[in-house]
């Protein structure tokens, strides 16, 4: 019966090669048994219509094939998924930082080459490189985790027995990581020192294959420094207070929110103000995106502040 052969073949297509021939032979035999039985019950000879009724009851080929395969097949299973998510985040942060540097270098480099407008080809090329970098790195991370998943599945049988002592500590979002806070304070200081005392170092250009330190800040930028210094000083002080208290409290969370809004105001003034950068339109385009992120972040903080239980 042709329809049965086609059905069995369609199921076989979804099965691994080592199972295929055997399962196909058995299914064909079983389907013919069912067909004969049904024809006997209905007192008519087996025909394609009856065969179709039998295989319809059996189910869609991919569904039937799935039942023959080992259960719980994952590319990356629930056991490894949190680590996979973390690795993806780290990879994205590293790529974003590296590509941010490349992007600025491309913009400033083309500006330092005394062109009237940035070299759009170089900028597009950089964006393409970043996109390919993101794709390849995420593919590599996924591949590594998929291999670990396979290896771990084999080791599961010999894994030590689970015990409550293995449970990870509960994450407390109000308890800051000391190392993280210290690193952030260091970065605030470094940025403040850079903008106040070494503005000529803000920016980096590649001209004729050689790296040049070229500030992309225009003199008008200095007018905004007092506002920024107040922001950095407040942020540094807030970090210091939280570090001394050992945890975020409602008051310090409110101060963090207020500081975020103050930062948004500074960004707004910079974006709407006179030209401040050598490639003003591009830097301001980036700052507009940062402004949107700051507003979203502040909205999220406000929501948490209003809805979180003490």
């Amino acid at each position, binding site marked *: 019966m042709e329809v049965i052969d086609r059905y069995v073949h369609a199921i076989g297509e979804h099965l691994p090669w080592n199972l295929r021939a055997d399962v196909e*032979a*058995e299914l064909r*035999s*079983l389907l*013919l048994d069912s067909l004969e039985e049904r024809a006997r019950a209905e007192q008519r000879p087996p025909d394609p219509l009856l065969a179709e009724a039998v295989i319809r009851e059996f*189910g869609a080929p991919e*569904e*039937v094939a799935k*039942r*023959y395969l080992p259960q719980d097949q994952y590319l990356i299973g629930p056991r490894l998924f949190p680590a996979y998510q973390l690795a993806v985040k780290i990879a994205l942060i590293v790529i974003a930082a590296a590509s941010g540097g490349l992007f600025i270098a491309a913009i400033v480099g083309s500006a330092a080459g005394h062109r009237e407008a940035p070299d759009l080809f170089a900028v597009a090329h950089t964006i393409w490189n970043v996109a390919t970098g993101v794709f390849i790195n995420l593919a590599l991370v996924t591949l590594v985790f998929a291999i670990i998943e396979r290896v771990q599945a084999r080791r599961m049988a010999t894994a030590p027995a689970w015990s409550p002592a293995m449970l990870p500590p509960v994450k407390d979002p109000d308890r800051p990581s000391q190392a993280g806070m210290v690193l952030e304070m260091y970065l605030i200081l470094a940025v403040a020192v850079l903008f106040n005392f070494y503005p000529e170092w803000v920016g980096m250009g590649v001209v004729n294959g050689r790296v040049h330190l070229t500030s992309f800040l225009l003199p008008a930028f200095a007018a905004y420094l007092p506002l920024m210094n107040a922001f950095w000083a407040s942020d540094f002080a807030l970090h210091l207070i939280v570090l001394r208290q050992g945890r975020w409290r409602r008051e310090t969370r409110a101060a963090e929110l207020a500081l975020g809004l103050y930062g948004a105001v500074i960004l707004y003034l910079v974006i709407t103000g006179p030209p401040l950068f050598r490639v003003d339109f591009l830097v301001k385009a980036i700052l507009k995106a940062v402004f949107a992120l700051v507003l979203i972040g502040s909205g999220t903080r406000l929501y948490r502040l209003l809805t979180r239980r003490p």
Partner: protein
Amino acid sequence: MVQAARRDSLRENLGLEFRRGALVLAVLSQLQQEEYGYSLKKALADRGLEIDEGTLYPLLRRLEAQGLLRSRWSLEDVRPRRYYRTSALGEAMQRDLAADWQSLARAMERLLR
């Protein structure tokens, strides 16, 4: 209308969930003697347990892969057929699961009284 459909779907899923475990015991209990897929399906149906073919046949393969069944091809019938029968491990497992089942059934009986 939507609520009734949701209730039916939930009822079906929950029913399938507790039938799934019972099917293994049912199959092991009927394979003390050799049967092929279709004859086993009929034997179970004759005793009041209807099993969908798309569920039963893959289950036989899985139980065989777990060492609870053994099988052989027979070429003596009208067409080649694969016959299954419980292995020594399958027989021991059937006794253990039957004891578990009876204990559970007694507990459920008390709970639902």
